[in-house]
């Protein structure tokens, strides 16, 4: 098993790191999409995320990792036994890979062939979506994912529930997960419907300044030569982020957003002409997450400005005659409106 490069040891790429942490802190933001050139540490960052997440309390032995406190979103088995006192256990938050070439039955879940063949039983074998419940579903090369899988994902990501109706089976189970995708935009665009499912979108570029390039190479080389020693050094840094995340999680519910900031968000979205309310909602949620990560009780304009580009850039209508990128357009609007 290969070890993951520590998240904290990634040089620069602050936008990407902030967006990933914000999306991890507040699942209702709706995940993050990381697009960028080859070799910029996209998947490294996402895979490093797993080490930063605290464990979660689940109903003991539940396949779907149900939250004993959230009665509304329990799976069929847990809700049927809800009256009796439930046993709980701690589990790491799942970060599930959806690899290219996965078949539908593995993603959604299907009839357990082994049981059917050997015991004559009709049993449901949960798929990746069940595994990812309350955690993260990571799709590398998201723009190369097969169309039929994209359709499935769009549906489940919207409803938070996976419904399997096949071979006489009728199963529904909770599938609330944070969608994390990465890819290289030169290899093809993402379907607009799928793009819309991502709360935040960041673009990453290869750093060009010498100092950070040297630092990247040095760290990667050190990691490769002796991963254990390298991990030991960076464990402390990772632990710091873990603590920040834990205290931010406690704080998040009490972070306040005042009317002035709401107006700022609306003005910005109206100015950019983003479709629907989703942009504003995401922007506010993300700003709150950023404030919580900062350890603040109140969202300020500065928090909003820091996360506005990832929250809005993929929601702009394409203007064929405007050559500038969406990120530049959001930045321009920010500069114009909030100087």
């Amino acid at each position: 098993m290969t070890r993951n490069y520590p998240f904290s040891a990634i040089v620069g790429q602050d936008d990407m790191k902030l967006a990933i942490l914000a999306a991890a802190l507040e699942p209702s933001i709706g995940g993050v999409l990381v697009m960028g050139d080859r070799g910029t540490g996209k998947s490294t960052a996402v895979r490093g995320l797993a080490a930063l997440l605290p464990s979660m309390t689940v109903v003991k032995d539940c396949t779907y990792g149900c939250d004993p406190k959230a009665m509304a979103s329990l799976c069929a088995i847990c809700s049927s036994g809800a009256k009796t006192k439930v046993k709980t256990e701690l589990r790491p938050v799942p970060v599930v890979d959806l690899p290219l070439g996965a078949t539908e039955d593995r993603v959604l879940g299907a009839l357990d062939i082994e049981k059917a063949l050997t015991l004559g039983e009709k049993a449901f074998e949960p798929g990746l979506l069940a595994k990812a419940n309350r955690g993260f579903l990571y799709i590398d090369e998201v723009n190369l994912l097969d169309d039929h899988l994209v359709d499935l994902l769009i549906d489940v990501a919207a409803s938070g529930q996976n419904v399997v109706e096949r071979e006489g089976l009728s199963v529904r189970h909770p599938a609330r997960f944070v969608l994390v995708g990465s890819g290289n935009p030169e290899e093809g665009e993402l379907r607009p419907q799928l793009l819309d499912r991502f709360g935040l979108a960041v673009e990453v570029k290869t750093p060009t300044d010498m100092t950070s390039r040297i630092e990247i190479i040095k760290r990667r080389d050190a990691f490769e030569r002796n991963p254990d020693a390298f991990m030991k050094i960076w464990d402390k840094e990772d632990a710091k982020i873990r603590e920040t995340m834990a205290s931010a999680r406690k704080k998040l519910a009490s972070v306040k957003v005042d009317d002035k900031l709401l107006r700022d968000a609306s003005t910005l979205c109206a100015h950019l002409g983003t479709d629907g309310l989703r942009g504003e909602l995401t922007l506010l949620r993300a700003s709150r997450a950023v404030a919580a990560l900062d350890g603040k009780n109140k969202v300020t304009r500065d928090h909003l400005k820091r996360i506005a580009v990832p929250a809005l850039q993929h929601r702009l209508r394409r203007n064929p005659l405007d050559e500038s990128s969406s990120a530049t357009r959001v930045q321009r609007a920010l500069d114009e409106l909030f100087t």
Partner: protein
Amino acid sequence: MPTYWLTCLHVAQLIALAPHEFGGVIVHARSGPVRERWIQALEQLARHHGLITPLRKIPSGISDENLLGGLDIEATIISGKPVFRPGLLSHCDHNLVILPMAERLEAGTVARIAAALDHGSIQVERDGHGERIACAMGVIALDESIEEDEVVNPKLMERCAFYLDLDSLAWRDLPDTKLDAEFLDLDPVGIKERVEQITLRDEQYAALIGIAAQLGIESLRAVQFTVRTARYLAAIDFDWQQDEPSQEHLERAVTLVLLPRATQIPDMADETQAEDEPTPEENEEANSEETQSPNHETDVLEDQILEAAQAAIPRELLDRLTQLALVRQKNHSVGKAGASQLSNQRGRPMGSKPGMPSGHQRLSLIDTLRAAVPWQRIRQLQFKSSKNQSQPKILIRKDDLRVKRYRQCNQTLTTFVVDASGSAAINRLAEAKGAVELLLAECYVRRDQVALISFRGSEAELLLSPTRSLVRAKRSLASLPGGGGTPLAKAIDTAFALAKGSLKKGMTPTLVFLTDGRANIARDGTPGRTQAQADAEQSAKLASQVKVRSLWIDTSPQAREESQQIAQLIGSYYLPLPHARAQELSQAVLGVLHT
């Protein structure tokens, strides 16, 4: 013995020593004795280092079932239990694998191989089976491309440390002798231990980064490979006992990894000449401030290494490699060739339907089993009561049989042939650009592709090779200049050549001409309206032989007869749209082409 052959052998040695650390080798060579010799040498070295030979091959059209694994039909039926048969990749752990005709690998296959190269393992989630399979492998990608539009997928190139060009070697130049002892005297275990001890000094890291910048290499993976190569070279070197690579090791690493990736070659000779010239004191100061060199020592080291590395490789070969790197950079969307050929048995799986398997229809075992499974208990009870034969494990009836369904989506390629001459006013060019982008937005929902040819002056140029990426389209559209004559004949020739090529690849091309049809440059590039018109008509007649759907949009203020005539000769749908806006243009194209 040519020194480049020695270089090739060194590469073989390194990749056989540590396949996964170096990712792989891109071997640009046509099939022939030189390539055979190199692969032979490689296999010999691979055996020496404990790899399994002969090396396995991954063919370009490999299915996911064969690559990643799938349900084993026979074993499943015999044992009455699902048996998963691992795919090719699971046999490749700690080994090398050959990719013949790497330039024709499908993008999806490349992505799966790239994932294996990145993580040393692949996650397989197929046919009721989920597993992480170790496959820390290296690839030998045989690049047999001849044409400029065939290149190995950049994603794969990025993950291979070494590029070789064997076409530059002649069979008669190769030595007859077997491999030297130098190659076979190595102790792999000892070397691996030594490699871990070896580190680079900070100046050495900085120098390598600087060299990469000078050679126009952006990716940091390339530098990472150089560092790794330098460390391995130092570990292999018996005479070298220090814990950092020598300058010579760095030079060789740069020669092996960075130089073949160069997109620009800094001319060392020129630079030294410039330095020799007496320069005023102030100037020199200003210069050093401008470059902001953090460390003079680093700069010196950088130049020394680069110079030595360049000297190690023949200039002619270097130029060829640079040319290859440039071509590769230009063509981003590659490896698509053959992705959509017509066949009854390929395409995107669409589930299954009841039916008997036959020549064209393949049995979908898993769905057949699924259909049969719920009835087993009942059927077995029936079976027992009716016959006294031994009981089969599973009872399948004709009704259970399912066949695979594929959707063969034939990709559409819409090529815009845009008149950028002086007579087609600049504002119309802007509208054409707008229309292309609007159509592209429409196209990527359907996974169609778009290309753009512009013609002006004496040339017709393929500005945007077939793509469905908005990013690329925007980039090349932004740099579309206007003005000059109208070489209509050339435009028609170029457009239909592209259309023919895409037909061969199994795509459905459509052409959209946006022009006023006033030809005034003949095919040979000379001005003159009469000859130009005659040439255009001749091209149109030739083009009519290619069965391609096309649309001729006449953008001149008043519809003209010559223009209509050419459209008729080609067999185009003629559409006069004197003041069309981007929106209307895209609507018209969609209306005509999709009815």
